[in-house]
């Protein structure tokens, strides 16, 4: 489907992923305080869209670009309308790509430290913050720390091994088909 200024929009989405999140966070935090959500999980969740959304758009775009247009066209010749063609023909074919994109986004979001460092406090801390806080200045409980680190790194590693065939495409936002 032709979208006006497709390339420019694509570049813009890509550039939102490239901008350092902390620079974006300053004005957003000001906004969060204005609307009264301040520091907390709501603000953190919204900010994490900045990490995940451009990533997912670009990865899934890579997979859809690979599908021949004729598939969708033949579905429409057979009587599907556009939505139906998308649901019954295109989506099942790119479903592995969508799943891979979701996992990659999950990993990036899970591993993120910088945004949560300011946006969460105390009980709302995410795992990376909690792990790093468990290191005291004078004493470190190495046993506990080791357990916490394992709990933190296990989900990303297991997920990545599940999607290892899509890992390269995911990490490079679809620029490289692995």
């Amino acid at each position, binding site marked *: *489907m*032709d*979208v006006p200024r497709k*390339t420019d*929009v694509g*570049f813009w989405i*890509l*550039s*939102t*992923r*490239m*901008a*350092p*999140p*902390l*620079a*974006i966070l*300053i*004005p*957003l*935090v*000001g*906004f969060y*305080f204005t609307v009264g959500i301040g520091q907390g999980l709501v603000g953190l969740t919204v900010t994490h*869209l*900045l990490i995940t*959304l451009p990533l997912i*758009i670009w990865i899934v775009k890579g997979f859809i670009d690979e599908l021949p247009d004729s598939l969708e066209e033949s579905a429409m010749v057979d*009587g*599907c*309308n*556009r*939505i*139906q063609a998308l649901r019954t023909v295109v989506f099942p074919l790119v479903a592995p790509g969508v799943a891979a994109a979701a996992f990659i986004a999950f*990993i990036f979001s*899970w*591993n993120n*430290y*910088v945004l949560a460092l*300011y946006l969460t406090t105390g009980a709302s801390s995410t795992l*990376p913050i909690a*792990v*790093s806080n468990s*290191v005291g200045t004078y004493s470190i409980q190495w046993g506990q720390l080791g357990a916490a*680190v394992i709990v*933190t*790194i296990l989900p*990303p*590693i297991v997920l*990545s*091994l599940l999607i*290892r065939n899509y*890992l*390269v495409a995911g*990490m*490079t936002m679809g*620029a*490289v*088909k*692995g």
Partner: protein
Amino acid sequence: MLGLSAVSERYRKRRDGQPLLNRLEVSDSTLRWIFMLPSIAVLAFISIFPLVRAVWMSLHDWNLTSGKGAFVGFGNYARLLNDPEFFRFEFDPSQPLEFVLSGSVVHQAVYTGFSVTIQLVLGVALAMYLFSLSERWQPIFRTIFVLPMLVTPIATALMWRLMIDGSIGVLNFMLEAVGIAPPAWTSSPVMAMVTVIMVSVWQWTPLVILIVFAGLLSIPESRYEAARVDGAPRWAIFRHVTLPGIKYMIAIALVFRLMRSFRAFPIIETITSHGPGTSTQIMNIQLYRTVFVGTGDAGLGAALGIVLIVLTVGICMSIVRRVGMMQ
């Protein structure tokens, strides 16, 4: 003979049993906006709005908690340039060898330059080694090579901090066992930077390996055969067959490594806490400390953020455009 109305009648009947979403007839021009609006709206809120607001904030005296102050024009940018934590250069012509060059821009350049270069060289070398392995060992080594990248950065940082610890660090113990005096990892400015770059190389070389390995797989075997038939020596095969084949992949790896090195945070902050002094403080960390630690000088921080955004997006996008990632 079937008339047009009969056909459309049958067509409608078949549709009636379908879920509502399939029966909707929406024109393409409407549909394209329905598809695009949610993500465009969200992205606009988290990218255009903050960007405009950051520019606006950087032109004001602005405190994170108490809010907007007086309009200062480019005052924040001027303050940033005069800030010795941002850039400091002292040079005395009478003693040309004793100059001071520091500040977060300089640290950023050193950190990014060395870590990305080492990662690329090491990554290409290891990818070629991986490529040369037999079918049996390749998947095993590939998994091993990739693992560091999947470890949560904060966990990497804590792990390395434990390993280089002065009293209980296992790395010091191993070095002593082979008769090398362990260096003071984080106490001198140069060594602290070396340590940080080392950990960053450990964590992110796997990404380069993965990308370049995908490139190596895509080079057709016939090109190697042709080169071998012509009697090309090994370095010539690498120079004229392998390197052109993975040029695009190296550029992509460069973009993604550059992008992330500009936002490096957990590794540096955990291992050296941007010290000793501020000798490993890169721009991203200066930004964090300016705004979110201490008085909350959001005006200055926004100015620094704009500089950082322009640098990162400018450098990365120019490479992306040149190598044609969009196609």
